[in-house]
Every structure is written in C-alpha cells, then in structure tokens.
C-alpha cells in the first residue's frame, strides 16, 4: 500500500475543464501524474458505462469535470453529468465498492489552479482508499469465474 500509485481517469469537457487543465499547464502548476484526461465535448456526454468501464478495467478513481453552474456551453450538460455521477455512486454502493471513487467537479476555463487542486485532492482521496477492489482478490476471482 505504501507505494500505491492510483490510476485516475478524468473526463473533462472541452469548453471548461479541459481548458482549465491546459491552463494549469501553461501556468506550470504541478498536479499528480496519476490523473489522465479524456476529452469530451460536454460533461453531459459521460455516462455510467464510461465510468463503470473505467473502474472495471482497473482505474482506481474516476471523475467528471464540467463547467460551473450556468456556464455550460450546451446549457445543462453539467447538471446531467452530476446526475450520472450520483447514479454511479449509488450503483457502486450496492456492489460494495466505495462510492468515493467517483466524483463530479465544476470549474471554469480560467481556473487552472482549481484544476490542479481538484486533481491533487482527488488523488489523495483515492490513495487513502487504496487500490480498486476490482483488482484485488475477491473481485478478481469473481471475474475469473465469470470469465
């Protein structure tokens, strides 16, 4: 556990969060390399399958980052995204995986600092939770059994 380096997938909307990530870069703000960004046109594009598949394939944490309330380029995508995240949390709860492994964040395109802060805090959170149980014994056995 000491050397556990979580793998984290961040689905970032093109107009705000992805831009904020670029901003963090251009301001040379460091954040953990654990976070890997997948760009989507709108956070509302991210559905439960994407988050669940990421966890199934072995990611230790997943988050969706969209625009601030009222700033969504597509009006309400960020609100829908938050709903999808809530649904996934419930699902995880039911199957015995910590729901804290998924989260929704909002930031504007100008918030490079916020992006870096979120990436760091989320990585810390997952580090404390430890590896995704899908990768450890019980679930792995189930997976093997199911094939």
């Amino acid at each position, binding site marked *: 556990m000491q050397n556990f380096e979580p793998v984290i997938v961040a689905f970032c909307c093109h107009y705000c969060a992805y831009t904020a990530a*670029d901003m963090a*870069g251009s301001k040379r703000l460091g954040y953990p390399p654990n976070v890997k960004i997948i760009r989507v046109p709108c956070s509302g594009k991210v559905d439960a399958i994407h988050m669940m*598949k990421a966890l199934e394939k072995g990611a230790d944490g997943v988050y969706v980052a969209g625009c601030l309330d009222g700033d969504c380029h597509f009006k309400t995508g960020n609100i829908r995204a938050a709903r999808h995240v809530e649904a996934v949390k419930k699902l995880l709860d039911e199957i015995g995986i910590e729901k804290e492994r998924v989260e929704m964040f909002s930031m504007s395109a100008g918030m490079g600092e916020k992006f870096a802060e979120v990436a760091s805090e989320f990585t810390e959170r997952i580090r404390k939770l430890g590896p995704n149980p899908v990768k450890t014994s019980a679930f792995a056995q189930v997976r093997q059994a199911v094939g």
Partner: protein
Amino acid sequence: MQEKTQTNNKVLVVGGGMGGIRSALDLAESGRDVVLIDKAYSIGGLMTRLDRTFPTNNCDLCTLSPHLSESGRKLHIELLTMTEVSRLDGEAGDFTATLTTKPRYIDMDKCTACGQCHEKFPEAVRFTPGLDHRAPTCMRYPQATPYAFSIDLERCEDVDALVKSCPTGAIDLNETETVRKLSAGSIILAPGAELFDPTVLDTYGYGVHPNVVTSMEYERILSATGPTNGQLLRPSDGKAPQKIAWIQCVGSRGVQEGCVAYCSSACCMYALKEAIVTRERFSDAIETTIFYMDMRTFGKDYELYYQRAKNEFGVRLVRSRPHSVVSENGSGNLEIAFLPEDGGQARSEVYDMVVLTTGFRITPELRELAGRLGIDLNEHGFARTRSFDPVATSKPGIYVCGLFESPKDIPETMIQASAAACSAGGDLNPLRIVAKSEEELPPERSVLGEDPKIGVFICDCGLDIGGVVDVPKLVDFAASLPNVAFAEAIGHGCSKESLGVIRQRIGDKGLNRVVFGACSPRTHEMLFQDTLRKAGLNKYLMEIANLRDQDTWVHASQPDVAAQKAKELLKMAVFSVRLAHPLADHTLPMNKDVLVVGGGVTGMEASLSLADMGFRVYLVERSGQLGGNARNIRKTLEGEDVQAYVKGLIERTESHDQIQVLTQSLIVDHTGMAGAFRTGVQFGPQMFYRPIRHGITILATGALANRPREYLLDEHEAVMTQRDLDNLLEDRADKVQSWNNVAMIQCVGSRVPENPNCSRVCCQAAIKNALRILDINPQARVYVLYRDMRTPGFEEDYYRKARERGVIFVNYGLESKPAVKANGKGVTVSFRDPIVGREIQLPADCLALSTGFIADEESTEDLGTIFRLPRTQDDYFLEDHIKLRPVDLPIPGFFVAGTAHSPRSIRESVAQAKAAAGRAQTFLARDTINLGAVVATVDRDKCASCLICVRACPFDVPFINAEGYSEIDPAKCHGCGTCASECPAKAIQLMQYEDDQILAKLDGLLERMV
C-alpha cells in the same frame, strides 16, 4: 446589384478589442479580406481585464474565444499588432493607409511562447498574465493571435544573455520599425477608449489612500489570477474588508476640473455586478453600499438585475454624491461624507475599502488618430455620427464602433461592430463575395477496408517537450505500439516545414491514421486536421496526445514521471485512432434569399442593407403600411427630422427591385433550417396563402407604444403621452403659448411589476419635449417627476441643458407615486418634494406621461411558437447570448433587431438592423453551410423510440419520425452528446466521440493492469 466603382476589396480594422475582433470576424466570415491592427502587442482590449461580466456574471470571453480560431479567420484576416495608422490618403473605395509597426524583437514564426525569456528577464519582456490570466490560453491561436510576448529593449541590461535565453533563436534584435502601405476599400475604427484615472481629483483620495481603488483595480482583485489570487483583500494591510463602498460617476457627469460632462453608460451595471459578486462569492456578511446619482440600468433586463441586487443580494443603494473621502487615522479605513437624499444633515460613514466607479475617456492619441484620418469629433472628442446612420463617421468609407463612438457596454459594442462590418463590407465590390476561391485540395483517399496504418509524429516543441522527455525514446515506444507503421520526431510540428514533412510521410508511407504527440487539440486540432486533408486523408482520422500542456509543462521537474505519462497518453491516442473512421462534414446548399418580418425602421434598414448587397429580400409587414412606431415620432432628442427620414426609407424600400414588400401579411407556418427555410405567409385583404423559401430570417417586429390607464390618460384632455405631446408641439405650437405649468411623470407603465424593465426612450422624450416647450414658451414652468433620470452617453448634455434652462426635476419613489386630479381644463398633480420635504399641489395645463414601450406579446408569442424561438419573461425575443451575440437568435439563421429585442432608440435600432444584416451575410456569403461532423446519429435497429433523447436534448432536436424511430437532424445537432449518454439502448452515438473510441482510450491506459 448596385454598381460599385472601387477596385479595392480589403477592409482595415483599427483596434483589436472585442469590437474590432467582432467586425473582423464578421467580415472574414462574409468572405472579405481584413487587416486587423492594434497598437498593443496582443489583442483583446479592455474586456480581457474584467473578472466577470454583467448580467450573466460569467467569464464570457471563454464563450467567445472558441470562435476566434474558426478557419475563416486564417483565410481572410491578417493581424498586425504593435501597429498604428500613421497616414491616410485617398477616399472611400480607394484608401491608402500607411501602417507603422513597432519592432517586437521576436520572430513570431520561431517563438513557441515557452516563456524562457520572460522567466530570465521579467523586466524586459512584456507579458502580462497577472493582469490577463486568459492571455496564455484563450487568446492563443496558431499563426493568428500572436503569443503576447514582446521585448522592451530599453529595460534590458544584458542583451546578449537575453538573446541566448531563447531556445529557438526567436529573439531578433535587428528588427526595426516597419512602414507599409495598405490599400483598403473601407475602414472600421474600433480603437476603444481608456478608463478615467481619478488621481487628478483631490476629493476622493485616490493615489493617497491605498484602500481607495478604481473599479478596474477591484475587478483585478476579484479575479482568480489577479494580484491577490482571487482573495478579497484590501491593499493597505491585506485584511479582508467587511464594509465596501462604491462611488458612482467619478469623473463622469461632472462639471468640475478633470471631469467630463457625459455619462459613461456602463458603470452603474458594473458597480452592481461587483457588489453582487462580492456578496455572492465571498460573504454576505460583507456590507456593500453604492452611492449613486441615478441608477442607469436601461439595457435589456438590466432593471431586473438592479432589483435582484437590492432585494436578493442585499446591496445597499444610497442616492447621494459623496462630498469627500478621508482617511481615518492610521487604521486604513475611510470616512465618506455625504448629504442623504431625504434632505437631512450631512452624514459620514466609515468603510474598509472604497471603489471609485470610473468611466471612459478619449485619449489625446485618439484625437490625433482622428486628425490623421480626417474625421470629425464631437465636443467630447468622440467620433461624430448621426442618429440615422450611427456607425458612419463624417468621412465616407470610414466607420466606427464601440467606445470611440460613445460610451457603451459590451452588447451595444458588439451590435455596432457587426453594423460597421455590414456598412464597410457594403462599400466593397459585392462580386468578390463568391470570387474568393478556397484552396485546391487533393481528392480524399478511401481508407475503407484497410487495416489501420498509423503514423505517429512527436513534437519536441523546442525544449518544452524535448527538454523534459527524451523524444527519440518516445518515438521508439510509439513505433512498438499496435498498428503503428511509422513514428518520427518532428521538431516543431506546427511549423510550415514540419507540416510539409508530415504531408509527405502520409503519402510516402501510405498512412491512414495519424497521431500527433503535441500540444493541446484546443489550439492545434484545426491545423493538424488541415494537414491530413491536404495529404488526401479524411481530417477526422487523427488524434492528438496533449504532451505539452498536460504533461511536460506540468511535470517538468520529474522527467521520469513525465516520460511515463507521455507513453500512456500516446498509447491512449493510438488505441483510439485505430477506431477512427472517415466522417463527412454535413453541408446544405444555401438559399440566399432573406425574410424580414416587420416593416418599421429596423426592418427597412435591414432589408435595404441586404438588398443593396444584391440579396433578394421579402419584407413582411402585418399592418397596411411601412414605417412602424417611427411614423408617430417627429423629432429626435438631437433635433433631427424623423418623418423626413422615415419617408425616405419607405420610398427606397418600396422602389428597390431586390425587395418585395408584402403588407397586411401574417406568418402562419414555418419549417426547415438555416439556408433552407420555408415560411408560409397569408397576405392581403383576401389572406392569400403563399410559401416563401429563404435562407435567413430577420425578426424586426418591434414593440408597442405603451398606453396604460393611469393618471387620467384618455380621460382628460390635458393628459397625454410624450408622443402625443411631440406631435402637438409640431402641429399646434400655438396651444403651448398659453401654458403656465407643464408636468411630466416618468416611468408610467415601465419599471413596474407588469412591465418590469426600463423603456429606455422616455427620459430622452421628456427632456426633448421640455426643451421644445421652453423654445416656444420661455415663460412656461416644466416639472419632471422622475425615479432615475436615464440619459446615458451624450444624452446627458440635454439633461444638463434642461436643468440650466430651469426645468425642475423632482424625484419620486414607487411607494409614493404622484396623484392626478381633474381641475377644469387642466389637472392638479400632487407629489412630495424630497428636498423641501412636503407635499406640493401643482396646477398643470398639460400633463405628459412618459409611457414608453411594452412588448408586443401577441406577435412575439405567435412568432415564437411558429419559429420555436425563446422569449424573455416580459415577452421580448431572447437572443443567443446576451453579451456577445446580441442579434443572433439561438436557432441558426435567425436574427433579431430593434424593439423586438428590447426597448431602444431609433439610433440603436438602426445600428442593430445593420448588425443583423451584417451577421446574416456571414451565412449568405457561403454557397453551402458546413455543419461539422460532430453530430449524434441514431442506429434505427436499436432505437426503442422511448423519447428519452427527445426530452434530454437541450436544443429540442431529436424527434420520432414517421417510421417510428428517433431522428436527429445533423443540421440542427450541436454535438454535445447528451442524447448519446442518456439513451438507454445505446442506439445513439456521437461522431468522433463514439463509445468504442472512449473505451479504447481506457484500454490504452489500463490494458496492462488487470
């Protein structure tokens, strides 16, 4: 088409703020060539310094900035920074401008904006991310908006070391001032204005007490990347202020030394915004007080914003112009002395911080520019224009927009910018619209049935990538990935040479997919897509791994970490691109006819602008005649003859062979999309039905003159509206001779719950009529009962003149409205005078009510339903973006202008009409409409027609078609993918972001792990 004699087809746009950028983009999108110059070393102007903008409280630049990189721009706009017009020869249609460009000492082709020079020589390199945190990202476009670096040689002590600090050798000290002659058919001036520096005023202690700041300094303090990193701290001791005061009209609406007489128009709104943001973002325990003279929230929905500030956010408003600001001993706190509005004793209050709301100023440089160009300025130093042609300067062929025309806010600037683009474009030869040929492209090679053959090109971006990770090692890694046929280090991938090499390799190696290990797709996707297309590949067969902005810049101090992440990012891109398939941009042939709904001044101006360009216009008017509201207006505030103007407009409209006027017409049905609309009209006394096919729709349906049953209107002959009085003053001036007292009541039927917004034109009408009454009968006494006198810009001059000539202005509040009783041939008006503090009974020979506008609810509701357009809660049409797209409606191809948009003056309506015509041309210039390829498509076999997509789409695009499955019209789809994520059967995929592509990225990242 009209004959145009000029041969020159470029437009010179002077000034790269929001206005100049909008003009340039509109022209470029209409197929015009533009040279955009700015004296600063980067573009963006004043707006880039603002934290957030009213009334949305959003960072709106981020909404606009994606549009700045549209490809039309590259083809048609040449940008010259650090450049000024030093001389102008010639005349409209054939100007020769002499442009002088100062040396930047940086070769923009070589500069990668790595920032090394700035890091080592911060004092000698001009770059202002602190002031403008967006500069390094939003304003960064390939080859277009330059990175905002420039060298200040005078401040550099070690020139050799500075030159050596640049890894790409971009610093070139041999650069000299260059002079260039430019031929231009027309010119747009958008040089903006400066903000007033209150140091010259001795009353408010600016420059003496550190906690007295200007509104712009306060914006910077609020900004997340300002001097305090977005924390609200006061300058003297870094404490968080608990009591903040704003003082309005500092330097504006004044007569004392250092002040200007005009109103700066935008400041009331931005003070409200700053106060709201302060309480919203930091703490509602912070007391915010605004000291004001008149709250001038006259724009669209601004009155609601004002009410929200007071009632929801608890911003305190005090009607008083403070006398002075003095420092409380040693504490850094500030004491404001003022006379309260109820006429009581002078008071003082102590604040932690004071914000001086400063307005706009014309600089001496702008006056010199006007002199060089030979245009007239008004008495305040702004470009002189006329009410009926508000963007034309005194010199034919030269147009103006934004602050240099008059003080104004961003939406009005955007409107004028589009209007100026329309007028300037109209001066050019219309044939050129279609004559500009696009680049010849090779045919697109079919990759159908081929296995992926991926080429990976990895940039070193100088040291930005190459200095952190070992690019050759990355190349080896990439070459080992599945389906990668070729990998190569490419240096600066965005340079012309490298792009040439990449094109060559795609052909030579027979590549059918490409991955770039480069910087951000936000800035470079378009460029790399172009490269694929030029190499004969479909432009969607590629992926960019963002190695710079999201890896080497972030992990520069941990090369191993950066290298590992770079590998993962490349692998994700390779896995995903394997599944990429060719996509076709959706296109439609463009119908170039235009439907204009509404035959008032706005509708006619818009029709004429487009018809003069050679477009066919159908002008549909509900009533039996053209002219609209303006038929009942005789004079403008400035004294211009409205009837002569309207008569001329009607004659030109009716006789224009490109305009077909349909009066007594009703819109009854509508289908189609931008470029291919079909609208059914019933017209004439028999109500014949006729379908009109058109590509663009402009709504200019106007508003109604309000006539509420109040204050004995239509019950007593002495009571009339300002419009009635306007006509009476022209036709029956003799009546006025016998008047002793005239009373006027403002805001009748406006700024009340039934009609919450300000009607914008009534304060001007009252002052106009008051002055005319005094011209006819100097003995008459005129009383104006008002809530706030709203005479923005130069209208303030007339308000001042009215006061000087003895018109008496008495303030009243909504809770103590005046009362009116019949009194023989006249009326008695009773009101409370707050200065003397008692009730006044005024016998008046005439009572004029300022009744303003009310939305034409019936029309907007009908048309809103037929065209599926949204409306505001008070029934005006709701534009796409209140700040940046004030004439575009949310459905592409629809535009709105005039009082159908919001209450506005004739001057503003004309500007908006031309703006709508200008924006329409950005569509009409195309032969086809390109809708992009990122659209949702439905797999009919999987669709259960459950209606979820129909409900989920934020733009109401999907519908269940006759065959029983969901259909998404690619012409209407905005490409957000919401439907794709909501669809329970996964029957919908968003092109370029298909589920299997996203999952492939996850595989690329996680494959080794389980």
